[in-house]
């Protein structure tokens, strides 16, 4: 099992002289160095790009949240559980924003058992409601890694082959109480191609290292709250797909929203969702069986057709055609008094960004916005059109 050499631990390496990074300028102030460090951290995210790698777009992700006694520790404000739940709400919203046709489920583990908080579903409302309710839950007992992974596996193994199956475990305890051999479970997870990643809140635990290494996931331990958020948001992006995952054509139906104010005869259509009671005026009709649904994306309960709307698919397009990182050029090389092509503001930073295709010049803020939210270069769109 342990044939691969493990990463050298930090205390085994030489001294890192971290104080040498900070340099004072002639007035004795550190402002320039601090700005440089902030600037580099802003750019770090923009530089990671997958390139021409196939990504798993349709994802089934289970998040296992440890609710054991150690989550009452107050090193994350107000305590670990509340901080985790708050970050999870932001995660769920961001996840459905980036992966509109994927699904998420929540599992909690405490008292040596695991319990499903929400089933795998494609709509964020249920998950957000469940997370809000879970804030009042008590943290008792010990977590059980085996039980929670087993519970997630029961559902994930029935998922179709072309989707990606993932589990993210937020693990804060240093112990786990398992009814059977966890290494056997790890072998089963590996054979089912389920990728497990762990975010640790206390310290590195050996069994998690083996788990993530065998299944192909990542394992990080958070340093503080902002680092925790960064690690969590790392899982929002679609991961590169496994080489052996099957590709298939999925039959989908496209729905348009219909308002009932004009057609009275539809007002008695019953809703398919059993959790909500009541009639609503508007809804979505399945194109195959005309059953009414209140939200998208969903699988039609009558005929089994996956229902989406075109913007859902369009949201994922920017993953397929990622925008290249811009080149950094110092301000002195440009003719004086230039303006940013996007926002028309004066260029004040020392470094500006140039698009390699259209040579448009952009300031730092616009560059960050373009790579994070916009995913297309404003001047390239113009020059593409004239071709």
């Amino acid at each position, binding site marked *: 099992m342990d044939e691969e050499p493990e990463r050298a631990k930090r205390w085994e390496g030489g001294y890192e002289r971290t104080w040498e990074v900070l340099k004072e300028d002639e007035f004795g102030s550190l402002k320039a160095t601090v700005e440089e460090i902030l600037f580099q951290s802003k750019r770090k995210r923009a530089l990671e790009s997958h390139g021409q790698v196939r990504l798993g777009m349709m994802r089934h992700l289970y998040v296992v949240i440890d609710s054991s006694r150690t989550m009452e520790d107050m090193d994350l404000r107000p305590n670990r559980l509340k901080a985790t739940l708050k970050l999870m709400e932001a995660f769920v919203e961001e996840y459905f924003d980036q992966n509109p046709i994927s699904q998420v489920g929540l599992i909690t583990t405490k008292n040596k058992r695991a319990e499903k908080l929400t089933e795998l579903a494609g709509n964020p409302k249920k998950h957000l409601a469940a997370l809000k309710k879970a804030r009042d839950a008590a943290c008792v007992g010990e977590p059980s890694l085996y039980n929670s992974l087993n519970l997630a596996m029961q559902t994930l193994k029935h998922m179709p082959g072309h989707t990606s199956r993932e589990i993210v475990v937020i693990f804060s305890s240093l112990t786990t109480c398992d009814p059977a051999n966890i290494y056997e479970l790890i072998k089963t997870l590996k054979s089912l191609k389920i990728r497990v990643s762990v975010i640790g809140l206390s310290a590195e635990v050996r069994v998690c290292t083996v788990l993530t290494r065998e299944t192909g996931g990542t394992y990080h331990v958070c340093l503080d709250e902002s680092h925790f958020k960064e690690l969590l948001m790392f899982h929002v992006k679609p991961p590169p797909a496994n080489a052996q995952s099957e590709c298939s054509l999925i039959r989908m*139906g496209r729905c348009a929203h219909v308002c009932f104010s004009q057609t009275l005869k539809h007002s008695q259509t019953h809703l398919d969702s059993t959790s909500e009671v009541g009639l609503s005026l508007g809804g979505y009709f399945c194109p195959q069986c005309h059953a009414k649904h209140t939200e998208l994306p969903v699988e039609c309960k009558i005929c089994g057709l996956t229902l989406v709307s075109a*913007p859902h698919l369009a949201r994922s*397009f920017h993953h397929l055609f990622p925008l290249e990182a811009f080149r950094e050029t110092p301000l002195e090389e440009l003719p004086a008094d230039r303006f940013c092509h996007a*926002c028309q503001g004066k260029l004040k930073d020392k470094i500006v960004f140039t698009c390699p295709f259209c040579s448009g010049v952009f300031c730092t803020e616009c560059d960050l916005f373009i790579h994070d*939210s916009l*995913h297309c270069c404003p001047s390239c769109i113009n020059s593409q*059109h004239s071709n």
Partner: protein
Amino acid sequence: MASEDELNLLVIVMDVNPIWWGQQAQRDMSESTECLDAVMVMGNSHMAMTTTNRLAVISSHFQDSHFLYPCKNWTGGDGAWDGTMDEAPYCGDGKYELLSVANNVVAEEMKRVMSTTEMKGNSTDTLLAGSLAKALCCILLQKIVTFFSAGQEMKSRILVIKTAEDCARQYMNFMNVIFAAQKQNILIDACVLDSDSGLLQQACDITGGLYLKIPQKIALAQYLLWVFLPDLEQRPQLVLPPPVHVDYRAACFCHRNLIEIGYVCSVCLSIFCNFSPICTTCETAFKIQLPQMMKSKKKKLKQSI
């Protein structure tokens, strides 16, 4: 009513495709100058509502988009919004100076844009995605500037005045821009003069703005003032045109027909109307689901008594 301290930024994106306007002038004698007048009336009214309201005008040509107001050649970027107008011309009719300045600048820039842009090709569609992207970046910059200088939040919206038809090539960029606007809580309103635009209908639906197709071009100023001048808080109190039914059906990649039920490739998300063993976009081979083999049951022969 909006509170005294709120900053509202209205960005008007105007479609100035000269070929379309030329055709219009020949057809029914309407001119682009009338449209520009109506737009400036709207812009002036917006700025006159509160002193803290701001305006930006972008002209969308078919190859490029230019900021008509505020113009960077005039006071160097942010001068228009700082209130520092040392060179404001005296207009003589007692009007609020900012309005006359805005009118003059827009007229000058428009003349410059129309006379200096080279014409390549004779397509009649315009480049809305690029102008919207620039508008979003400009809004973002202003948000940061006002937040740091005055500590106030800024609300903004974009009004698109569209004349020519949609360009099908910019679908993906357009959708990216719309999703970015939705994330930033920026409304996109659309005022369409000629032909219905499916892209703008989707944009208004997703961001929560208003879509209106104007039946009479002469009354453009009236429609703009009635429908698009009130901002987001006042809109529920007014009776505005009802939302249109948006056609969200997508076109299949093989025939460009609009389909309701189709097949989606799990790798590249391209849409097909019929099942085919290979995806034409990403060239992945698909696993075909064969019907399952059933074991034949041996039937007992009925024994007739």
